[in-house]
């Protein structure tokens, strides 16, 4: 072990020496041992993720109720997903939710993080860091229940509105056709705002203060600073925020299941919940699977461009 100790203490971890070391390792032909190490993970992943994924695609071409025979229907299920307003409407709803789940946390997060950047090392900020994470730590179902209660017709939201004189606007936010989807969006925004703010704040603290000094000298005001320095430097963090929140919006299930069950009418139905209903309540496994495939593709289509645009090539 003495040789090992000297290695740990002495040599740096990066640089050409590390690369040479790695190449030497490869030459020793540890091929099949490495596969033994990777095998259990690959097996678990294949068995419980890849196989079901392939099966979802398979199911989408049949009509099946889970018990009986399953006739082949080709692309009929996919046609139905795009033409039946009950199904295509869920995709529209999911995109509308992106405005709330992504838009609010990212925009407000940026604004707030920029404002509190200067006091980022104070004790208040340390406390805030803990508090703002709480929505990420609790189960989404709990957030849904909490906000359902807050947005009830005699809940806190309406109480506050009445207190500031907007009593006429009060209503059961989650039960009203026009406001149900935005209300669900607000719940999602609440859950994700803290995470985004903190991520952006962490990113901001990495920005070289010299850049700001230089901008100050050139006479730039806070807004110019913000748009010319802060935002561009945060490309990666913004990309992460947008990715995480977009996936949360498209794949949303927990909050809507517990808060509105997709109602009233179909106004808050999202693809995740509709898949559940189609597969396990309406016994239309084929349709559910087609919608599931569409959802997976949709997530990829939305996330890949964001990743390419904002991630620095490493």
């Amino acid at each position, binding site marked *: 072990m003495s*040789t090992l100790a000297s*290695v740990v203490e002495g*040599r740096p971890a990066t640089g050409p020496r*590390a690369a040479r*070391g790695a190449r030497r*390792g490869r030459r020793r032909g540890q*091929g099949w041992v*490495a596969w033994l*190490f*990777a095998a*259990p*993970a690959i097996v*678990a*992943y294949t068995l*419980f*993720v*890849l*196989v*079901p*994924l392939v099966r979802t695609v398979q*199911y989408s071409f049949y009509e099946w109720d889970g018990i009986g025979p399953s006739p082949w229907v080709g692309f009929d299920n996919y046609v139905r997903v795009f033409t039946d307003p009950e199904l295509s409407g869920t995709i529209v709803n999911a995109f509308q939710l992106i405005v709330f789940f992504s838009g609010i946390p990212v925009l407000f997060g940026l604004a*707030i993080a920029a*404002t*509190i950047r*200067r006091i980022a090392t104070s004790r*208040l900020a340390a406390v*805030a860091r803990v508090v*703002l*994470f*709480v929505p990420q*730590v609790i*189960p*989404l*179902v*709990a957030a849904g*229940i*909490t*906000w359902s*209660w*807050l947005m009830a017709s005699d*809940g*806190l939201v*309406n*109480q506050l509105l009445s207190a500031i004189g907007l009593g006429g606007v009060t209503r059961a936010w989650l039960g009203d056709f026009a406001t149900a989807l935005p209300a669900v969006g607000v719940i999602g925004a609440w859950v994700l705002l803290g995470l985004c703010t*903190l*991520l952006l704040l*962490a990113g901001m603290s990495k920005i070289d203060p010299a850049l700001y000094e230089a901008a100050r000298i050139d006479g730039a005001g806070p807004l110019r600073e913000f748009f010319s320095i802060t935002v561009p430097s945060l490309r*990666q963090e913004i990309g*992460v925020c947008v990715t*995480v929140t977009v996936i949360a919006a498209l*794949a949303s299930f927990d909050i809507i*299941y517990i808060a509105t069950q997709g109602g009233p009418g179909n106004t808050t139905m999202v693809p*995740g919940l509709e*898949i*559940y209903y189609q*597969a*396990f309540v309406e016994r239309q496994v084929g349709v559910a699977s087609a919608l*599931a495939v569409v959802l*997976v593709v949709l*997530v990829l289509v939305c996330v890949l461009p964001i990743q390419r645009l904002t991630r620095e090539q490493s």
Partner: protein
Amino acid sequence: MIVGRREAWTGRAFLVLLMLVTIVPFVSLFFTALHPSGTYPAGLDWPSQPQWSNFVTAFDAAHMGELLTSSVLIVLGVVPVSLLLATMAGFAVGHLRMVGRRPVFLMFVLGLTLPYEGIITPLYYQVRDMGLLNSRWAIILPLIGLFMPFGVFWMRAHFVNVPGELSEAAQIDGANTWQQFWRVHVPLAMPAISSLAILLFLWTWNQFLLAIVLVDDPAKRTMAGALGAFQGQWGTDIPLLCAGSLLVLAPTLIVFLIFQRRFVAALLQGSLKG
């Protein structure tokens, strides 16, 4: 850097406002939980006679003891195994540079953005055919598989930065690959492993979809899943529902407050890396 006083105060005000917005819902939940069972109290309203017994009633009605046990069992089933599998695979892909590591790694990356709804339907029938429906294994086994993409990604990111000299030195001392792994690399990877453990613990405890689809008996679900059943059974009794929700929230909240710094660091890093 000169900090303008007005800017500092605006910043503080914003921060406090943000924290209020985060906390107030829980306060409202707490106040409501103290009202007499079966009533519909208005938003923020301290009851004239706080019913602390509601918490006891909710604890009994939801069989919280069983739920806690069930969640702990599921976490014990998922997290250690997932950590081991992910670390081994990350080691293989990131450090041992196995042949075919790019396709294998990309295969895992494919699953990073996969929404669980994309596979829940066949998973249900697969678990049913395995005879595991309505048992805790129905949640444990699929979760292990589902955590592999992120886990392997995370551990690989760590192992890629570990110098080959370490393994070589251990080899010279007579250790085979497995011993190298256990004696040298795992201890070195502890920070990454513990962060991963925190993330996996959180995601398992809060898992909802798998719990309600694959397990009917609330006593065998995760706590989040059981909350769904609790809402179904007591949803009409608001104070009781609020008390029950708070009790379900409590474990993750307490664990979070104890391990705050690790949690926050892990969550921030987790989002950046993923």
